[in-house]
């Protein structure tokens, strides 16, 4: 483990500055107590917990049919992935089969969710670097416009735009309505065209390159040591994607590329996510092409709290969310509620990298790095 206090500057007086919890680029409620020497960060004390809502305790008091709707509130930007992790853990203990149509639908919403989440990431990140009264806000509004299209799809599918409750133990709760598939195809085609616009704005933009190249470099060894996942890990040269490494929900049937960049800086993470946008669109198209007929759940629709009982046992299920590995560890005691539950939030683990890479960079880089890590504080604090 590298020494966090390796950078020991001598000279001018040090300044302690609070960044957050109420700060324009706190990404929610993150508080970084920065020690500055001029503009250079020499120490960072990361404080989390402002959004703690006792999710894990809450899970012990809610039945298996209830919790998926609450699980979506952990990572509220990518609600589908945490729901999926929870129901997969329950299915693994109870050894419940999931119909193929339901598996495909899970992949479909998971990938749409990744597109929506990455839209928000790109927008907020550019806003962090470009300012609410500048070019960053322009990209932010473009991205939000595209995210709304995906949320419209979810609204037509589930009835909710942000927190869905789409998954249930044994399958999914809603089937695609008539005409939805065509709308979905149109939407992803539209987003695909807009991606070219974003890249036209950013790729050759010298200011964007200056802010992201060589900034916040995570070496491969450090990435593995700290346990980051998702685009951060792949941006640091590790070819690891749970959809490929441990396929779940019939991901093995789809063709997609796992982008890997070796630079490890903010720009590498940007490149990884931009490819992921396109690969998600590719998977969405494959799902829509090959959506099998059949039931959407191996269990009947939800009627009572005692409907799902999971036998004694424990299991860990993990899915590749937009931010990385979302894991759910579930201990069941045979009743209709879990005995104990533990989240492995991707944002939480990714955030642990900050004290390692922030010292030595400038205040302006702090926000660029924070944005490239893409934390969602609902998931960090739970």
């Amino acid at each position: 483990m590298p020494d966090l206090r390796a950078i020991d500057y001598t000279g001018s007086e040090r300044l302690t500055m609070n960044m957050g919890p109420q700060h324009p680029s706190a990404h929610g409620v993150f508080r970084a107590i920065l020690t500055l020497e001029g503009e250079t960060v020499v120490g960072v004390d990361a404080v989390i917990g402002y959004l703690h809502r006792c999710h894990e305790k809450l899970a012990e008091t809610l039945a298996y049919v209830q919790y998926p709707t609450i699980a979506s509130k952990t990572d509220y930007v990518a609600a589908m992935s945490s729901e999926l992790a929870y129901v997969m853990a329950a299915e693994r203990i109870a050894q419940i089969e999931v119909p193929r149509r339901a598996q495909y639908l899970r992949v479909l919403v998971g990938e749409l969710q990744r597109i929506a989440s990455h839209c928000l990431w790109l927008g907020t990140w550019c806003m962090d670097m470009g300012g609410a009264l500048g070019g960053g806000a322009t990209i932010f509004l473009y991205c939000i416009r595209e995210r709304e299209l995906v949320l419209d799809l979810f609204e037509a599918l589930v009835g909710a735009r942000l927190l869905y409750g789409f998954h249930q133990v044994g399958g999914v709760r809603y089937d695609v309505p008539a005409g939805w598939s065509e709308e979905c195809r149109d939407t992803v085609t539209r987003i695909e065209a807009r991606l070219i616009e974003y890249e036209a704005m950013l790729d050759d933009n010298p200011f964007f390159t200056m802010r992201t190249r060589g900034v916040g470099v995570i070496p491969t060894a450090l990435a593995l040591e700290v346990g980051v996942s998702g685009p951060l890990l792949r941006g640091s040269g590790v070819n690891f994607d749970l959809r490929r490494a441990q396929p779940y929900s019939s991901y093995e049937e789809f063709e997609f590329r796992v982008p890997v960049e070796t630079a490890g800086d903010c720009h590498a993470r940007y490149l990884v996510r931009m490819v992921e946008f396109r690969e998600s669109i590719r998977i969405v198209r494959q799902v829509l092409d090959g959506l099998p007929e059949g039931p959407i759940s191996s269990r009947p629709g939800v009627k009572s709290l005692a409907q799902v009982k999971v036998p004694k046992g424990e299991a860990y299920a993990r899915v590749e969310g937009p931010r990385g590995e979302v894991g759910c560890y579930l201990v069941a005691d045979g009743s209709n509620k879990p005995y104990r539950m533990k989240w492995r939030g991707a944002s939480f683990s990714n955030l642990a990298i900050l004290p390692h890479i922030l010292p030595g960079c400038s205040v302006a880089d702090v926000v660029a790095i924070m944005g490239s890590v893409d934390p969602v504080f609902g998931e960090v604090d739970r």
Partner: protein
Amino acid sequence: MTLPPIVMATIMSAGVLGALVGILAYVTLLERKFAARLQSRIGPYRVGPHGLLQPIADGVKLMLKENLIPASADRPIFNLAPVVFLVPCLLIFATIPFAPGIGVADLNTGVLFFLAVSSLEIVGLFMAGWGSNNKYALLSAMRAVNQIISYDLPFIMAALVPVMLAGSLRMSDIAAAQSGLWFIAYPVLGQLSFFAFIIAGVAAENRVPFDILEAESELVAGFRVEYSGMKFALIQLAEYAHVLGTSFLGALLFLGAWSGPGPIWLGPVWFLLKALAVFIVLTWIRWSFVRIRVDQILRVSWKLMLPATLLLLLATAAVIVWRTPGA
């Protein structure tokens, strides 16, 4: 009947100031509407038809807001800073002739006066940052000193190219020298110096991508973080006045000032339209780029902008000597 010069000057400056504040209010609306269209939004729309009364509503709102002074602030400096910031930003309009003979003072060192006074805003900025006794404000003020000093030099160099071409520092002479050909159309030199003028102008006015002193995602709002109500309004007014002043200077130095088709009394209108065109270019840059870091800004200034504009100045001198018969 001729009025004594002092009375004439007073009337003229009151008129310019009044017109200026009105134009400034609507320049903010122009920027907001332009940015909104750029971002596929509508922009202000509710107050009056197409949001035309929005600047007035904003002004009234800011006047009615509570005026907060932080307990630990340095009160005299804190209170004085917005005024110290505003005065040079309004003073730069003193030497601009809006049409032949219409202007507060057509000094024979007009451009020099403009450039000198416009760099004075740094005093107000630093007072605001220091007096607030806030860490964000202090960091911002330190950045401000760094940046404005670094960018005033290339800004001055770029502005000197038309001055050399016209052979005079008097603004009306520069405008008159462009009656045939605008300086932006001067082969190579004109375009390059206009480009440098725009870049350095954006930086000297602290707008995105060089708005590191405001940098709300890092420093919340920078030096103005503690200001509210009318003092905040004065700071905003000063910033817009500075931007508009630079736009007028750009239109005067490069776009032929008041020359244009139509009768002579249309001159000020043409001048205003050209200044607004420069303003739109500045706004366009602001709303399309992400900001760069303070060290990168300084590097760009000292290692790229300053040598480039110096070379430009030398090239201009060489061209003038070459084209002067008998030199």
